[in-house]
């Protein structure tokens, strides 16, 4: 990455508060919504925060006037994920907090986030993870590129930025090829877990984050009505959700020299060979 840059960059990194994947996750059988009580910053969003902060550091750092705004939407507790992003180096936070957002599908989510990004204004680059770890659709970044008319640079394996030309280049897997693709800002960038190694906030960074501000906005503040988001604004409706029966452990044998044969016997019994 080059050192010189012309104008300060305004980067917005999207973070999502999701149920911890280390525990069993549940869908409520009445509301058909995900139980979000044990939530954390989506692990894959840490790569997005790292990419945004590293990009600023390569362009003269925050002292050069660049900004990284960590943004989220969701209920009150979602601000915890913004705090984590601030500890990792984002300069400020914004939280679209409105109960009416619950139940948003990708179409409604991208609508709300695009309105939030336009509310922030003059954003040069939107950075996201490759997927949330809850819904796992991984399509919201592309939908944001569509709604904002930004270049779509998604699923980046590696990222390069040229400050002078404001051109972002990524590598991405596509069919049986790896492509290098370039676009001039503004752009939406989604980052895979191959792109970097997220930093672990140290004590100093955790203390510094306490001084950073998180702005809270409502749907009214970003000129959206409750009917445009959440279940009402979604183009899909969920009819039912059923937990699959847990897999049960089958026979386990100790290898005493013939286990490879026993394996083939099992495959033959199951008509798999």
């Amino acid at each position, binding site marked *: 990455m080059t050192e010189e840059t012309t104008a300060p960059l305004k980067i917005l990194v999207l973070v999502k508060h999701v149920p911890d*994947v280390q525990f069993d*996750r549940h*869908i409520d059988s009445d509301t058909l919504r995900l139980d979000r009580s044990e939530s954390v910053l989506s692990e894959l969003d840490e790569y997005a925060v790292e990419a945004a902060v590293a990009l600023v550091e390569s362009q003269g750092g925050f002292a050069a006037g660049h900004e990284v705004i960590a943004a989220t939407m969701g209920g009150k507790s979602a601000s915890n994920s913004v705090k984590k992003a601030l500890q990792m180096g984002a300069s400020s936070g914004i939280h679209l907090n409105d109960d009416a957002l619950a139940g948003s599908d*990708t*179409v409604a989510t*991208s609508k709300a986030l695009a309105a939030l990004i336009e509310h922030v204004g003059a954003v040069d680059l939107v950075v996201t993870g*490759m997927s949330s*770890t*809850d819904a*796992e*659709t*991984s*399509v919201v970044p*592309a*939908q944001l590129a*569509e*709604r904002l008319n930004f*270049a*779509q*640079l998604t*699923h980046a394996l590696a990222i390069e930025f040229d400050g002078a030309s404001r051109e972002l280049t990524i590598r991405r*897997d*596509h*069919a049986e*090829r*790896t*492509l*290098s*693709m*370039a*676009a001039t800002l503004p752009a939406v960038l989604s980052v895979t*877990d191959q792109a970097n190694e997220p930093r672990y906030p140290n004590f100093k960074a955790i203390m510094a984050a306490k001084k950073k501000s998180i702005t809270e906005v409502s749907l009214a503040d970003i000129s959206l009505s409750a009917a445009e988001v959440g279940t009402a604004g*979604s*183009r*899909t*409706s*969920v*009819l*039912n*959700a*059923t937990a*699959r029966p847990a*897999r049960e*452990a*089958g*026979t*386990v*044998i*100790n*290898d005493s*020299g013939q*286990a*490879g044969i026993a*394996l*083939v016997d*099992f*495959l033959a019994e*199951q008509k*798999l*060979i």
Partner: protein
Amino acid sequence: MPSALVFFNELSDVPSKAQRELLTLASRFDQSTLAVASEVSQDAQNVVANYGLSKLFVAPSQGDVFVDHALSVLEASVKQSAADVVLVANDNFNREVAARIAVRLDGAVITDAIDVATDLVVTKDELAGSYSAQAQSTGGTLFVSVKPNSIDDEPQSSGQQLEVQTLEIQSATAAQVRVVATEAKAVSDRPKLTEARVVVAGGRGVNGDFGPVEDLADALAGAVGASRAATDAGWITHDAQIGQTGVTVSPQLFISAGISGAIQQKAGMQTSKCIVAINKDVDAPVFEIADFGIVGDLSKVLPQAAEEIRRRQA
């Protein structure tokens, strides 16, 4: 009966297994159309006709463009066909194209589908396959990405006359994204990981040597996968990674060798029909979900199994 549109970005002479599954799914609907954003050979057209599709839109791309051409082709095809449901593959590129056009045309989008009924109710996996859910559109055109290995490939016996129409795509604006370099990946003779009937995967326990894993995969005509520990160690390319940040597989048979089966890894394979696990550690979590488990040394068990399979097939 609703009508369906299938969209492929590319179609070779021999359609992939995932593409044939989508064509089978489309044949359930009336007057199904296929749209392809590149050239389609006569051989490929003959295959498509065997699935009872009646119309083919082709729109060869001009130059090296990434997403923009596919977006224009899908948008034009949806408008011209007036299809009720649009079926695409579940890979990142096709999901993104479908999701953008759903936004552009005020439609609905559902990913990770395993079935689409003729009343347009979609069955899909949630939470890495630990839940099954059903969903539908609230009104607009429904865009669905369908997971491979969900539908049985069933061509119809008699081919139908395929009407081919070349779409005129106006590129009104210059592409926002330029492809500046293309690298072909190493070609493998093995089946594609996401489409394979059999997957043999290795983890930390292979200790740098994927030879026994590859050999058993070849004996079973299967694909080779890996845990993140193995790809991070550089023992095999990242493309082979199965799990939350890699690919999700749902084969008839999944053989896990030297993989502990941590929750992120399980997320990528737990919908496999049959799971076999080989691990030195009797407490490895993978044994909790395996239909058949072997506590033992994979470097002994895998070659013995591969040899026995070849002996019985000889």
